[in-house]
């Protein structure tokens, strides 16, 4: 009997030793859960659904503890239903989390596309503003830098690097704001209803004067880049014009390459201009002199700079950029030169249209 008892112990120990080396296989849900955990990590669950991911991790950790305690048992007979059920619950929560992550990623991708589209439109508008107004100060290198960054953002987004794409888009947004901040002071008054009303009154008065006197009148509208020719208060014709490199601001001093604003008169006709034909204006007028003196007193002018002169309406082409003059195509200039007499009033205003290109453009920008 004692010998049998010893044999039984030996058998038990042998069984245990072999059992220790060969574990009972775990339920298939466990491997699936490990795979799911990897997939969720790879999909960025901790970033896209942090709270749900924390809850999932807690549940997974608890299941892992249960598994470890099961595996650490001396002998694992019996069924693994409880373990399988626990991991099935984890898998279910993981599937829910995966769906949350998928939706969050889709939302992020859509947000990137929308942001890119908005910024592309804003850059396009700024590019048009610069291209149409042809003022040197609007042609900024930051615009092209922003376009390059937008292209980079698109590349990162396409390569599945949304973080990098968003970083670039953030900088593009700053670029747009910076370009706009430098452009707005130059163009804001052309969208100011009060200022436009003032220009409209000036034009209306000048046209009325032309009608009353039966004389000619030339009106230059800066935003539209047009010269409108009136006779006896009626429009005769209108021409496209080029203006100064810095035409958006009214001329203040010599060399500022700005086109003056206000009421002038043709002082002299020059048939031998180097720009085909020219009508010399009587710039500076009294208002110009007052502004110049005020700027001088406030120290806003460079040292030894004069008020400037020789502002003309001349030929040379409407595509030209001048030092402040108004340039027409030679064919239009020939017609004007023939018909316009010395003493003809020339009114230069910003615009008379409340819904002009600049105001409609500014409405589209942040």
């Amino acid at each position, binding site marked *: 009997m*004692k*010998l049998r008892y*010893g*044999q039984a*112990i*030996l058998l038990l*120990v*042998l069984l*245990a*030793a072999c*059992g*220790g*080396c060969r*574990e009972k296989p775990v339920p298939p849900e466990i491997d699936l859960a*490990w795979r799911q955990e*990897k997939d969720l*990590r*790879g999909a960025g669950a901790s970033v896209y659904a942090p709270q749900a991911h924390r809850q999932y991790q807690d549940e997974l950790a608890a299941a*892992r503890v249960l598994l*470890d*305690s099961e*595996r*650490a048992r*001396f002998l694992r007979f019996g069924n693994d239903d409880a373990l399988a059920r626990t991991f099935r619950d984890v898998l279910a929560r993981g599937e829910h989390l995966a769906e949350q992550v998928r939706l969050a990623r889709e939302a992020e991708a859509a947000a990137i596309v929308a942001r890119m589209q908005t910024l592309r439109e804003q850059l396009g508008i700024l590019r048009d503003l*610069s*291209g149409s107004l*042809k003022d*040197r100060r609007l*042609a*900024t*290198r*930051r*615009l*092209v*830098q922003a*376009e*390059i*960054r937008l*292209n*980079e953002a698109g*590349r*990162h987004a396409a*390569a599945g*690097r949304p973080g*990098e794409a968003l970083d670039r888009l953030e900088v593009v947004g700053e670029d747009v704001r910076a370009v706009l901040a430098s452009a707005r002071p130059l163009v804001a008054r052309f969208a100011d209803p009060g200022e436009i009303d003032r220009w409209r009154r000036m034009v209306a008065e000048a046209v009325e004067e032309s009608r009353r006197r039966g004389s000619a009148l030339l009106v230059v509208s800066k935003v539209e880049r047009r010269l409108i020719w009136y006779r006896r208060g009626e429009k005769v014709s209108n021409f496209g014009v*080029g203006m100064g*490199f810095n035409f958006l601001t009214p001329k203040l001093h010599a060399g500022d390459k700005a086109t003056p604003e206000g009421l002038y008169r043709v002082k002299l006709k020059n048939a031998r201009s180097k*720009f085909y034909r020219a009508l010399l204006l009587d710039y500076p007028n009294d208002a110009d002199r007052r502004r110049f003196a005020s700027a001088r007193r406030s120290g806003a002018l460079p040292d030894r700079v004069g008020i400037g002169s020789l502002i003309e309406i001349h030929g*040379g*082409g409407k*595509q*030209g*950029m*001048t030092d402040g003059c108004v*340039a027409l195509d030679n064919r239009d200039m020939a017609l004007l030169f023939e018909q316009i007499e010395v003493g003809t009033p020339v009114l230069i205003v910003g615009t008379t249209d409340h819904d002009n290109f600049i105001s409609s453009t500014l409405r589209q920008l942040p």
Partner: protein
Amino acid sequence: MKRLVTVLVGLVMAASLVACGKQPVEEIGAAKAAVEAAAGAGAEKYVAEEFTKVNEAMTAAMEEVKVQDGKMFKNYDKAKQMLAQAKADAEALQAKAAAEKERLMNQAAADLATAMTAVSEALTLVENAPKGKGSAADIMAMKADVAGLEAALAEVQPLIDGGDYVGASEKALAIGEKASALSAEIKAAMEKLAAVKAKKK
């Protein structure tokens, strides 16, 4: 006979506990060192996906060690196997990370060179664009564009120096595209101008 049985039982028990039961300290150390070496070679940055896999394999191996630690009859065979695999993968990754780093660096340098050529061509075209009152505004705008391209170009080398080769490549490619578009625009304008001149003659 009773004594013999007791001795046998003792021997089997000792064998079962000792043969499979010693924690693989050396293997753990070697695998950890290999993973650290891979990280040091930039695996996390340059072969991120594979590095994550190696880390996961290492974590799984350590989990296995932990499970066996808690058992009465410990068997670390599976853990050893897993550690050996993690070590081998990490060692392979070390070389792969270095090679990938080198490849990305060379690619970034090549992309920068291409972008520089494109910007240089655009600059030459702007400088040689027909000057006249009619083209002044366009030339002014193009000069601003070239200045922007040059400023963007200056941002590429610091990215390469900082090890952000992918970022450097993407920026260089974007610059190259913009420069090529500008060159095409200038060429088209020049051709248009030449056609107008030819018509006038």
